[in-house]
């Protein structure tokens, strides 16, 4: 009886896991519906290349920015006692509880044609919305919490003992950070950067709002997928989607490797 129930529960779980895997299966079968050639053609299309390049560019700017600021935030929250620390933590996590669409909307409200700074920017010929800066701002907003969130619990847990030891041995602030703190948090930092990067490259809602959907100019890969899908170019859409899925799978694999490395089930649900 117990074995039967156990078997049934496991079977049910495996069925659900299979259901969760189906979308992945669909992506690759749809992409390869007309063979390798069609996939390659779709991915080497000039517009696809532009989308890939734009996505890499957005990530290349926003990820390092957030890595630096996230590490700074983790240092002051994880190593010092000061009033308002909990509030600061809440503010850092705020972007996670905001809809992607709103994460894009706020930038339009600031820099769009009818936005607070819109007319001024327009007058000086600076384009933020429907241009690269807008895409970067929206991405930075959405991915800001990742690094700080993966560092702070670890830094709290490790305590300041090793940094204090380094100071008594004569190290200055930078030496302490670079030689003691950074090596101790490197895996968690990498973990945060990994998640930050995956989200930066895969973000859809926030960038959809600020992009303006100008082909070859402001379409990141996820937006390009949408454009192709709406054009009924399923092979094209699913080819780019397959590329994004590969990125997701690689990220997932690295994530599990890092989680094992960090030695606990320190897992971020985002």
């Amino acid at each position: 009886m117990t074995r039967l129930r156990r078997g049934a529960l496991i079977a049910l779980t495996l069925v659900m896991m299979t259901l969760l895997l189906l979308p992945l299966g669909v992506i690759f079968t749809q992409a390869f519906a007309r063979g390798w050639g069609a996939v390659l053609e779709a991915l080497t299309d000039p517009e696809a290349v532009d989308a890939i390049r734009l996505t890499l560019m957005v990530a290349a700017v926003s990820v390092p920015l957030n890595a630096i600021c996230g590490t700074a935030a983790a240092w002051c929250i994880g190593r010092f006692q000061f009033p308002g620390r909990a509030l600061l933590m809440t503010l850092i996590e705020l972007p996670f509880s905001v809809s992607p669409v709103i994460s894009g909307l706020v930038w339009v409200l600031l820099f769009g044609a009818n936005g607070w700074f819109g007319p001024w920017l327009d007058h000086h010929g600076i384009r933020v919305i429907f241009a690269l800066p807008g895409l970067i701002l929206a991405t930075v907003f959405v991915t800001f919490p990742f690094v700080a969130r993966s560092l702070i619990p670890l830094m709290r847990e490790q305590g300041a003992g090793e940094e204090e030891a380094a100071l008594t041995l004569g190290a200055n602030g930078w030496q302490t950070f670079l030689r003691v703190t950074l090596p101790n948090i490197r895996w968690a930092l990498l973990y945060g950067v990994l998640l930050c990067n995956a989200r930066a490259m895969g973000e859809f809602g926030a960038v959809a709002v600020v992009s303006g959907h100008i082909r070859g100019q402001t379409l990141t890969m996820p937006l390009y997928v949408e454009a192709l899908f709406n054009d009924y170019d399923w092979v094209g859409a699913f080819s780019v989607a397959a590329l994004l899925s590969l990125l997701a799978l690689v990220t997932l694999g690295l994530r599990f490797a890092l989680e094992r490395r960090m030695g606990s089930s320190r897992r971020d649900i985002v």
Partner: protein
Amino acid sequence: MSLELRDLRKKFGPTAALNGLSLSVPRGEFLALLGPSGSGKTTLLRVVAGLEFAESGAIEIDGRSMRDVPARKRGIGLVFQHYALFRHMTVARNVAFGLEVRPRRERPSAAAIRARANELLDLMGIGELAQRYPEQISGGQRQRVALARALAIEPSLLLLDEPFGALDAKVRKNLRIWLRDLHDRMGLTSIFVTHDQNEALEMADRVAVLQAGRIEQVDTPDRLYAEPVNAFVHEFLGESVRLDCVVADGVARFHNIPDVCLPTGCAAGPAIALLRPHEIGLLPGPGPAHVESVHAAGPMPRIRLALAGRIVEVLLPEGAALPMVGQSRGVDLSRARIYSAA
């Protein structure tokens, strides 16, 4: 070098961690800071090392004020309670750290640093562990690495926070002798924190007893044991028997022990008489003490007496005649130290 602390005060919220603490440590001394947990020992050590800041008071090393000297320039070696070894560095790199972070002008060559680290590890008797990581070695070995790391910067003063706290009893005993020997051989000035009175009394030249952020007494171990300045020190250092008494006209009298009156310089009023178990004498004739039990195993027989409403343990000298259980006997309390109860 010598250390001078004057009237240090520090609060954590409403509680005073250091409450007007003064202390001077001459060159070459091995001083123990002894006190219950929360008495301010660790805080004092951290203040001296420059990791915490006193609100007022002065710290001088060889007459030089440490007020504006940051931790990294004090040249004080600190061995942390849990060692705080750099977990991502090998043992050798841990030891070399203090030399590697020196400004280029003062930094020895890489080869010299390596040689110095190995030399220190050999001195600690753990030369073969140089390439291991902290998590791969035992607690006692970590302790030696932490010590080697602190000594690598040739500190003028060595501070040790509960150096044996995390070790098991046997390792601890061996390390004590070894550490004391090392201190003497290297001509160090050392302060170590402990809550273990035996450790303090066995190892230190002098022991400072702390309570509630101030020093109750600083003395050599024998004087501290023989002449505690107050009831706290008496009771903290070794087994004590405590009896309530009242002082009037320069003599102390006990409530339920007639015929005993002890001359004392203590102020009139309620007072406490304290004795070590072996300082209580058992008189031949009958008296107020009722023999509850007799344990004759071991060199000194241990007697439990009911005296003045409490159970009192007495150690009789070797070879003394044993009383019978149930007897009532007189007691000699003349070696009691009387402290005012206020």
